[in-house]
């Protein structure tokens, strides 16, 4: 996560979505100042703080802790050791399920968690990259969920309905997924450009429509698996599947390479290309951009199409790589995770990539934790949201840990001096 903070500090463009057009630069400057003052130390401490608070929840719900709490004042040591064991077991399981399973008998089993983490992270990263472009261009796109679904529908249909040679089949399915997501998001961009329709409403509505659309499609003969009553498609043909890059022992597929390539592409697009410069100019101040001769409305459409295409690729990773079949749950909650990931990564490509890996690790590890210690995976949502909140508010973290000479008031003043 340290790279994340330093990467965001390196690029000076104001991040963060702008719901309304910013009329004064102070908001962007505030965010920028917060970013610059957020060192790797704050990032680490934010994660620690999030884990501590979630640990309290884990301990509170543990039955042993609850029973020892009844005689807390008679023997506090029992209570403390029970709480420690509950929290430590959960977090050890979280680590073993997401990075390295130290208890596994074979090497393959030991490193499988890491490959699971990367597999889960692929759709989150891809969708998060798309959302990040929108945030930097001043569009708050909540529609990644629907765009992932449409990408999965297009990619999945090409994947199971056609017989094509290997390679070409995969390529067409992936392109189809990107087009599906891009078109779906393009609706919101087009409507904003032509009629000024608020993209927040339109993308929320498109999410809901996409969920019912896939539910409907999977009951039609074109999509439903023959002979099945369940809403599930035929399996994707082998020629259209992402190759498994570490062999058949691991689920990790070439979608991860797509995610890496997309991260580099988005970096180039936003930081090196003229198109990206226009996007950022519109995001920073759309009126100034219009005065400078940039077609703001065309930008709205292209931002959404590119963001949607990336979310569509996330859908392709799910349907052609991880799930290998089109189902109603193909997008899980990746579209909403991606919002948090893009915000945590400050909408920057590298930051989003690393934040996506972190979220992938928490999700993959959360399943292992639930299976081994019975701690519900829902606690992962608590950890994720607390991390984002604390990283977004460095002065809070500094005051909790009494950073710089003890008093919280003085430490905030130090922050301002550093930024000035």
């Amino acid at each position, binding site marked *: 996560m340290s790279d994340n903070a330093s990467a965001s500090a390196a690029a000076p463009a104001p991040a963060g979505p702008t719901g309304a057009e910013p009329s004064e630069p102070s908001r962007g400057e505030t965010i920028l100042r917060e970013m610059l003052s957020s060192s790797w130390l704050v990032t680490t401490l934010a994660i620690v703080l999030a884990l501590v608070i979630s640990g309290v929840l884990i301990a509170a719900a543990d039955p042993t802790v609850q029973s020892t709490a009844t005689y807390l004042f008679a023997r506090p040591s029992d209570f403390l050791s029970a709480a420690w064991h509950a929290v430590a077991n959960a977090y050890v399981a979280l680590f073993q399920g997401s990075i390295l399973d130290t208890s596994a008998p074979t090497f393959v089993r030991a490193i499988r968690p890491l490959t699971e983490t990367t597999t889960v992270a692929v759709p989150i990263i891809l969708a998060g990259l798309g959302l990040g472009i929108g945030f930097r261009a001043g569009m708050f796109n909540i529609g990644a969920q629907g765009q992932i679904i449409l990408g999965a529908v297009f990619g999945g249909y090409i994947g199971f309905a056609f017989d094509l040679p290997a390679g070409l089949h995969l390529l067409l399915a992936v392109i189809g997924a990107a087009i599906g997501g891009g078109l779906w998001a393009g609706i919101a961009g087009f409507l904003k450009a032509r009629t000024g329709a608020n993209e927040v409403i339109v993308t929320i*509505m498109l999410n809901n429509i996409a969920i019912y659309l896939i539910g409907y499609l999977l009951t039609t003969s074109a999509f439903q698996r023959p002979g099945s009553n369940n809403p599930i498609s035929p399996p994707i043909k082998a020629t259209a599947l992402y190759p498994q890059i570490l062999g058949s022992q691991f689920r990790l597929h070439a979608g991860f390479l797509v995610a890496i390539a997309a991260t580099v592409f988005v970096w180039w697009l936003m930081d090196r290309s003229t198109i990206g410069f226009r996007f950022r100019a519109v995001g920073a101040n759309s009126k100034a951009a219009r005065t400078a001769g940039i077609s703001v409305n065309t930008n709205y459409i292209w931002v959404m199409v590119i963001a949607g295409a990336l979310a569509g690729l996330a859908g392709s990773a799910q349907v052609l790589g991880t799930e290998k079949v089109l189902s109603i749950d193909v997008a899980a909650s990746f579209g909403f995770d991606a919002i*948090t990931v893009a915000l945590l990564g400050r909408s920057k490509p590298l930051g989003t990539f690393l934040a996506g890996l972190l979220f992938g690790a928490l999700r993959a590890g959360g399943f292992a934790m639930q299976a081994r210690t019975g701690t519900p995976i829902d606690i992962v*949502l608590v950890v994720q949201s607390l991390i984002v909140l604390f990283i977004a508010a460095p002065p809070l973290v500094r005051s909790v840990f009494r950073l710089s000479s003890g008093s919280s008031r003085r430490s905030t003043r130090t922050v301002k001096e550093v930024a000035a």
Partner: protein
Amino acid sequence: MSTVTAPPQGAATDPSAPRTIPLAPISWRAPIVYGVLGLLTFVAFGLLPAGGTFTTFTFSTGTDLFAIAPVRVPSKTAAVVLTLIALAVAVVSFVTTRSRRRIGPWLPALFGVVEVAALLTWAVAGKTNPLPVTGLLAGSLFLATPLVFGSLSGLLCEHSGIINIAIEGQLLAGAFLAAVVGTLTQNAYAGLIAAPIAGVLVALLLILFSIRYRVDQIIVGVVLNVLVVGVTSYLFSTVMKDNASTWNSPPRLATLSIPLLSKIPILGPVLFQQNVLVYLMYVVVVVLQIMLFRSRWGLRMRSVGEHPLAADTVGIKVNRTRVRNTMLGGAVAGLGGAFFTVAAGLAFGKEMTGGKGYIALAAMILGRWSPKGAIAAALLFGFSDNLQVVLGIIGTPIPSQIMLMTPYAVTIFAVAGLVGRVRAPASEGIPYVK
């Protein structure tokens, strides 16, 4: 709609003003939307074959002062007549738009009513079960309740300059606490009182991060929604699921019939045979509509949301106003959350608000940041939710998924075609630094 505006009253003093306004381009959006939808429905419901030749509607519920007999109409003729009325609305809209006259809200309302009636006439044609109009409307109002409270919360916050995306979290927290307190006390009203407290707690976090630490308000809102889902789902899985009888079996709010008023046919059962939460909703909507635009409190609030520096200059405490309004908004949304558990008579479930907070946000924008607009938009969503349920029981030729997606598609049409560029409070989302 945005460009078709009558000259302001005060413009008469400036002789050049009335001349410049007619030069603005005419927006043909509304007549085009009416025309296209009217034609589509005319073909679909009027000309294509329906499931039967007659459609029956019932209006009476048995408690009315006098019973209205069920109405049986020939399906095809009724649908043709109704869609022709819709096309007539399009023509009226065309004429008024061309002559640059402003039309009241009755035109879109009439259009919506005849289109929905045409759809129903077509969908229920030939079914043995008649369509219970009264039940359909009463259920719609009930289902709209959390959306109304949610969008009122949103506009309380946004008029004072704070974007409240955390409505979803406030609804969910309210539902959770209402269920827990309602179960522990075995009193639904205790749950109803507890629900706003949960909403305020979420609002306090929103305040802490967005006002004290000036974190981007949209980020905080989105993340708080995730946090509330996480905490409530975690507590549900660890504590409530296995001990449902001690933690999670809230009693249901009783239906209170208002004497006399509830006996009026159609209106009575719809409006006055509901529970106390719905009656509270009437009160809150009316009070807010008046207070927001007619009181000193509302004027101050709006000035803080539009131009905080000017408000500060005349001595209004900007951040204090924002804190109070955000807390009030949290309480209102939390109260709406009680709908899901104690008002609906259901146990708490993971993520049981199911995105209603985001729909409430859409209703707020669709209603252009006014309480009466918000309730109209929320009723639209509530109606289509309930329509799907009712038609599911009667059985219709339309797949349920298509029915379910209709309100969202209608919203997109409305936002793109009729509402267009809405204007949010100017300073929302921008922290005020003195």
